[in-house]
C-alpha cells in the first residue's frame, strides 16, 4: 500500500492500477495442468473424435479472446462482445438462409457486420471519448436489442455443409483445431502491420503516444473495428458449432474473453501482452469447463464453479505478479 502523491487517481485512469500481467510461464503451466487433469477424467481425451468435439466448442471463445486482447492492448475494454456475437450470428444466419451456396457470403457478412459493430463502439469510445467500460456496457444493450429484432426467438437452420464440415478432420487434425491455428496466423498477419505498433504505443501510454505523433484516436477506433472482425469470426463459429440461431447466445462471452485475455498474460492496463497468449487463456478456460462437465458436476452447480474459476484465475494473475506490480 505504498504509492506517491503524484500518481493520484485523478490523473491516471483507474485501469492504470491493474498493470500486472501473468508471466507466460504461468500461462503455459496452467495449460499443461488443465490438459493433464482433463485427460485423467476423460479417458477418450486424446482420440480424434473427442479432440474434434472439444475444439468445436473452444473456437468461439478463442476468437473472442483474440478480439478482447486487441482492444485491451489498445487501452480499451469491450463488455459488448457477447451481445455482438448474438447480433452478428443471427444476421449471418438470416443471410445464409440454410443454403450451402451462401456459406461464403455468410462469412463475409459476419466479418462485415462485426466491423460495423466495432465501428459503432469505436465511434463511442474513441471519437465521443466515453469510458470504454461504461460505453460498451451501453452499446451491448443496443446490440442485444437488435439481435432480438432480427431473430425474436431461437431457431433457423445453418447450412448443413457448414455444420458437417466444421466437425470433420483432415487426417488426424480436426478442422476446429486448424481454425484455432488459423486464428493465430491471422493475428500474426495483423501484428506485422503499423496498426499493431501504434496499438501497443496507444495502450502503453496514450499521452506519450500522442506526443510521438501516433494517431491515437484513429488507432483506438481501429482497435475496435479490427477486434470486432474477430468477433464476427467467433459468431460464425458459434453458428457452425450449434447449427441454429439464438438471439441470447454469448451472454457469458464478454467476461470469459476478458478472463481469457488476463490468463493469457494481457495486462488490463493496456499495452502489454500478446493476443497469442489470449488463445492459450481461452483454451485454459474452455478445458476447465470441460473438466467440470466430465467430473459430473451437477448442471445446477456448474455456473457457480465457472464463476469461481474465473475469479480464482484473475486472483492468481494478481497474486503471482505482486512483486513487479508496483512501478
Amino acid at each position, binding site marked *: *500500500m505504498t*504509492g*506517491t*502523491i503524484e*500518481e*493520484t*487517481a*485523478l490523473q491516471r485512469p*483507474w*485501469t492504470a*492500477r*491493474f498493470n*500486472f500481467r501473468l508471466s507466460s510461464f504461468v500461462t503455459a503451466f496452467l495449460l499443461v495442468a488443465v490438459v493433464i487433469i482433463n485427460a485423467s477424467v476423460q479417458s477418450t481425451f486424446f482420440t480424434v473424435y473427442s479432440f474434434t468435439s472439444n475444439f468445436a466448442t473452444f473456437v468461439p471463445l478463442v476468437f473472442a479472446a483474440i478480439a478482447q486482447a486487441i482492444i485491451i492492448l489498445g487501452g480499451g475494454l469491450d*463488455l459488448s462482445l457477447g451481445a455482438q456475437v448474438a447480433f452478428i450470428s443471427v444476421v449471418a444466419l438470416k443471410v445464409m438462409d440454410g443454403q450451402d451456396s451462401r456459406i461464403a457470403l455468410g462469412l463475409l457478412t459476419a466479418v462485415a457486420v462485426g466491423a460495423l459493430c466495432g465501428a459503432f463502439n469505436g465511434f*463511442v469510445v474513441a471519437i*465521443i*471519448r*466515453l*469510458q470504454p*467500460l*461504461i*460505453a460498451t*456496457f*451501453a*452499446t451491448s*444493450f*443496443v446490440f*442485444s*436489442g*437488435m*439481435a*432480438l*429484432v432480427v431473430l*425474436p426467438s431461437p431457431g433457423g437452420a445453418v447450412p448443413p455443409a457448414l455444420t458437417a464440415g466444421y466437425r470433420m478432420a483432415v487426417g488426424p487434425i480436426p478442422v476446429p483445431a486448424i481454425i484455432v491455428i488459423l486464428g493465430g496466423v491471422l493475428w500474426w498477419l495483423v501484428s506485422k502491420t503499423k496498426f499493431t505498433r501504434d496499438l501497443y504505443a496507444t495502450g502503453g501510454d496514450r*499521452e506519450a503516444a*500522442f*506526443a510521438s505523433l501516433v494517431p*491515437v484516436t484513429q488507432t483506438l477506433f481501429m482497435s475496435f473495428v479490427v477486434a470486432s472482425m474477430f468477433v464476427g469470426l467467433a459468431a460464425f463459429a458459434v453458428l457452425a458449432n450449434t447449427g441454429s440461431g439464438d438471439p441470447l447466445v454469448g451472454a457469458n462471452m*464478454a*467476461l470469459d474473453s*476478458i*478472463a481469457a485475455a*488476463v490468463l493469457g498474460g494481457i495486462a*488490463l492496463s493496456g499495452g502489454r501482452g500478446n493476443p497469442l497468449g489470449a488463445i492459450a487463456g481461452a483454451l485454459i478456460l474452455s478445458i476447465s469447463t470441460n473438466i467440470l462437465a466430465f467430473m459430473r458436476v451437477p*448442471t*445446477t*452447480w456448474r*455456473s*457457480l*464453479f*465457472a*464463476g*469461481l474459476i*474465473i*475469479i480464482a484465475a*484473475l*486472483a492468481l494473475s*494478481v*497474486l503471482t505478479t505482486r512483486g513487479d*506490480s508496483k512501478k
Partner: protein
Amino acid sequence: MSAPTTNVKPRRWFSLSGSELTKSAPLLAAVLTIVLVIVGQIVSPGFGSYGQITSMLRVASFLGFIAIGQTIVILSGGGGIDLSVGKVATFGAIIASKTMDGSNQGLLLGIVIPIAVGAAIGLVNGLGILYMRIPPFVMTLGMMGVVQGLILAYTQGVAGGRSAPALTALVNDRWLFDLPGVLFLWLIATIAITYILRRTSAGWDLYAVGSNREAARLSGVPVNRTILIAYMASGVFAVIGGIMLLGYTETVFLNLADDYMMRSIAAVIIGGTLIVGGSGSYIGSAIGAILLTVLTSFLTTISMPESGRTIVNGLVLIVLLAAYGRQRRLRS
C-alpha cells in the same frame, strides 16, 4: 446563437465541471421526466393521471432502492461499479419468498436472512477488489455468475414460496394520500442516505476516497473500511430492492430482478454521479430511477416491443453519457 464578439471561450453545456454537473443533471432529468409525462398524456390520455403516476413511482421505488447501493459504490471511485446487483436482488427475493412462505410469521426472518446474505456477497466483492486487487467490474461480473450458480443450487431450478401478506400490503395497499407505504419508505431512505452522504463523517470519507484515494489515505481516512462498507451497502440495498419487488409480484421467478443491474447503473449516471467517483448525489439517482421507469412505461404505452425498449435504453444511456460523461481531449 453565434457570439463572435465575445473574447471568452464559449462554454458548451456539456463541459460542466463535476460539482456543476451534480447540481444540473438531476434538474435536467426531472425536466425530462415531466416532459415525458406530458407527452405521454397527450399520446395516451390517462398516462399523466394521479393513479398512473403513483403506480409508476411505486415501480421506480424498487429501482430506487437498488440504485442507493450502486450510487455509493460508484461514488467510492477506483472504477467502482457493482454489476452483481441484479442477481443479488433476485437471490434476495428468492430467499425471502421461501422464508416467508406466504405467512407474516416468517416476515422478520424473511427480511433479515436475505439482507445478511446480501451483505456477505457485498463483503466478498469488496475483499476481492481490495485484497486480490481484481478490477471491480470483473469481480462483480464474476460474482454475477457465482450468485446465478447459488440461485440454481438453492432453488434446484424451481423457485417456491410466497411474499408475506404484510409485505405485499406495504407495496400494494394505499396509505396516506392514496400512496402505497413503499413510497414513504423510499422517501425516508432518500432523506437518510442524503443526510449520511452530506452530513456525517462516513459520507465525507466516501467522497474523499472517491475523488482521490491516495490523498484520502494520507489524510487518515480509513480507505479500505470505506470501500468494504460501500460494497456491503450495495449488496444490502440490492436485496432490499429485491424484497420490495417480491412484495409487488408476490411470487418469484429465477430472473426476477436481473434487469435492474443495467437500470441501476443508468439511473446513477443519469442522476449526474460521475462514473470516476467522488462527485454525485443520491437525489440524482432517485430522479434517474423515476425517469427510466417513466420512459419504459411510455415506450410500453406506445406498444414498442421488448427489443426496441432495450435498444432505446442503451441509446439513451449513450446520449446521456455523451452529454456529460466525456473524457478530456488529448493535448501535447
